[in-house]
């Protein structure tokens, strides 16, 4: 069989079994084992088992359960509620102020946790009803929470950056540093959009009545709510960027910070630990089994000789290196609509990274483009996770199609953000070059 036919069959059967509903980990593992059998025979499966052992030996990966655990704890403390109250007092007087405030809380949350769901759930239960009650347009509110939640994976720490670093071999610390400015850029872009829309169409976000805006002493008292999040952010990012600990140990520091926050809010009890532990176990296990299977996938992919073929195919795209990058982004964007981010990374990165490197692009920069694209994947229908998190917490009057339609302008803003990064790569590369 020619390599072209084999490759087509390989990716075709991956897709086929995925659509039939078999979990991603088993599709990757099963299809790869079958193809490995035809290229290298039965004994090549030993490779699969030994690769699992080496995955278990990656110290960086240990950060994943810890960052997840931290997020699960922070989601349940009163941190989000107090932050929201603070934003309410400070920004209530501005048109669209609550939406801007929500975006800022999402950014603060993103700097504490490394996953996308925590902020969506927290803001969906706290900010969403509050904003709807005050006459905010539901599409504006839903879109804001959806976008802000996705920043969890872009603003460090980030589980996806850890995985990216693992697959491509770049440093986790550099990836984290590279995510800071693009995160701020996206926040500015999104806030600008909200402000302009609300200025032109005041009915979308009425300003609060005078009596709800709070007095100055109240406003300053509410600022206290930022202290604990600051402590957590400082413990995690400070440890990594200051070179004190490895990213994995920094994650443990973050768990400590989260536990302290929970204690301060008197939310620290056995129930919280138990619930957070089991949710962490599920999410980490899901990621780990996809990773285990993905090793079979890379082995099969390489053994078939598909890599040179796909490289050749991609390089024949007219328009040079930039067209290739845009083409890759398009593929990832489309995959993001239907597939899990961890899966997308493990399927596409072994294919893309060598090509990107051979064209002379900075892998850190490409990683940030990739992560923003993943973040878009969280909010694009039909299979964006943030959409489902939101659906799980919104009041009954809001339908899935409301949520679907609300994301359109916000997705466009994120794509504009990717465009800015392509024109000004320094936004991503400045800080890592400065710190490391």
């Amino acid at each position, binding site marked *: 069989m020619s390599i072209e036919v084999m490759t087509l069959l390989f990716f075709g059967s991956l897709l086929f079994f995925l659509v*039939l*509903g078999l979990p991603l980990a088993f599709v990757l593992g099963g299809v790869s084992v079958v193809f490995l059998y035809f290229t290298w025979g039965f004994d090549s499966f*030993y490779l699969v088992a030994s690769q699992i052992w080496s995955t278990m030996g990656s110290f960086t990966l240990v950060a994943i359960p810890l960052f997840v655990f931290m997020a699960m704890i922070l989601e349940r403390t009163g941190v989000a509620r107090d932050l929201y109250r603070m934003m309410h007092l400070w920004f209530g007087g501005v048109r669209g102020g609550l939406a801007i405030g929500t975006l800022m809380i999402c950014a603060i949350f993103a700097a504490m946790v490394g996953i996308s769901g925590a902020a969506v759930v927290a803001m969906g239960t706290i900010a969403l009803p509050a904003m709807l009650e005050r006459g905010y347009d539901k599409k504006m509110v839903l879109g804001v929470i959806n976008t802000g939640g996705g920043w969890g994976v872009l603003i460090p720490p980030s589980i996806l950056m850890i995985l990216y670093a693992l697959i491509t071999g770049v440093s986790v610390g550099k990836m984290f540093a590279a995510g800071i400015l693009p995160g701020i850029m996206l926040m500015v872009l999104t806030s600008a959009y909200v402000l302009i829309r609300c200025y032109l169409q005041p009915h979308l976000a009425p300003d609060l009545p005078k009596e709800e805006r709070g007095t100055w002493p109240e406003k300053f008292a509410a600022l206290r709510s930022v202290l604990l999040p600051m402590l957590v952010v400082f413990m995690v990012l400070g440890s990594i960027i200051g070179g*004190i600990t490895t990213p994995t140990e920094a994650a443990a520091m973050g768990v400590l910070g989260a536990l302290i926050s929970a204690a301060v809010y008197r939310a620290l009890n056995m129930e919280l630990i138990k619930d957070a532990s089991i949710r*962490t176990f599920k999410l980490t296990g899901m990621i780990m089994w996809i990773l285990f299977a993905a090793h079979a996938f890379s082995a099969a992919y390489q053994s078939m000789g598909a890599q040179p073929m796909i490289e050749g195919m991609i390089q024949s795209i007219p328009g040079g290196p930039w067209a290739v990058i845009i083409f890759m982004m398009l593929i990832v964007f489309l995959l993001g609509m239907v597939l899990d981010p961890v899966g997308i990374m493990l399927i596409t990165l072994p294919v893309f990274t060598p090509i990107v490197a051979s064209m002379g692009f900075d892998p850190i920069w490409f990683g940030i483009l990739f992560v923003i694209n993943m973040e878009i994947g969280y909010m694009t229908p039909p299979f964006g996770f943030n959409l489902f998190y939101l659906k799980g917490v919104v009041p009954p009057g809001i339908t899935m199609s409301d949520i679907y339609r609300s994301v359109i302008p916000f997705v466009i803003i994120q794509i504009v953000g990717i465009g800015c990064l392509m024109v000004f790569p320094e936004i991503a590369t400045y800080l890592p070059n400065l710190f490391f």
Partner: protein
Amino acid sequence: MRALTAFMTGVTRLNNLLGRWFSYLVMVMFLLLLTGVAFRYLLQMPLSWTGELTQLLFGIYGLMAGGYLLSHNGHVNVDLVYSKFSLRTRAFLDLFTSILFFIFTLALFYFGLDMAWESFSGRETSNSAWNPPIWPVKAFIPAATLLLILQGIVKLLQDIAIAFNLSYYQPEPEPKEVPEDHA
């Protein structure tokens, strides 16, 4: 039939029980890493074993989640088309796709066992400064895969019962959609 039902509930309970206990390993890993940092900076006394022990526990933690997750349908899949089908159609599809599941997990079990046995016969250690034996951790690869396979057999039996209307298993009414956590 009674034995079949007992097997199914037994395996599911075992995976749930183990899952609940192993989920607390995240606390252990956290405490170990924290101890490591504290000894290094506060007591100026770096410990050689905290990082490595965390690492070994993490491997076990990830592996052991496999069977637990399957018993909770927690492995992420693409349910775009799949969720549109009836319970029975899904059961038939699952019967078909389970071939891949068993090919992957059986290959993993066979070679995992091989690897663990080799490690055990050589009393393999990690060759680090601390140098602990690592065969117990390697043994978790076939052990956890076996738990996953057993849970896969339970799922297979459930799907057969649903697909052919057999009485030994009654599917529970579908729970209200609570979104699972994702990265």
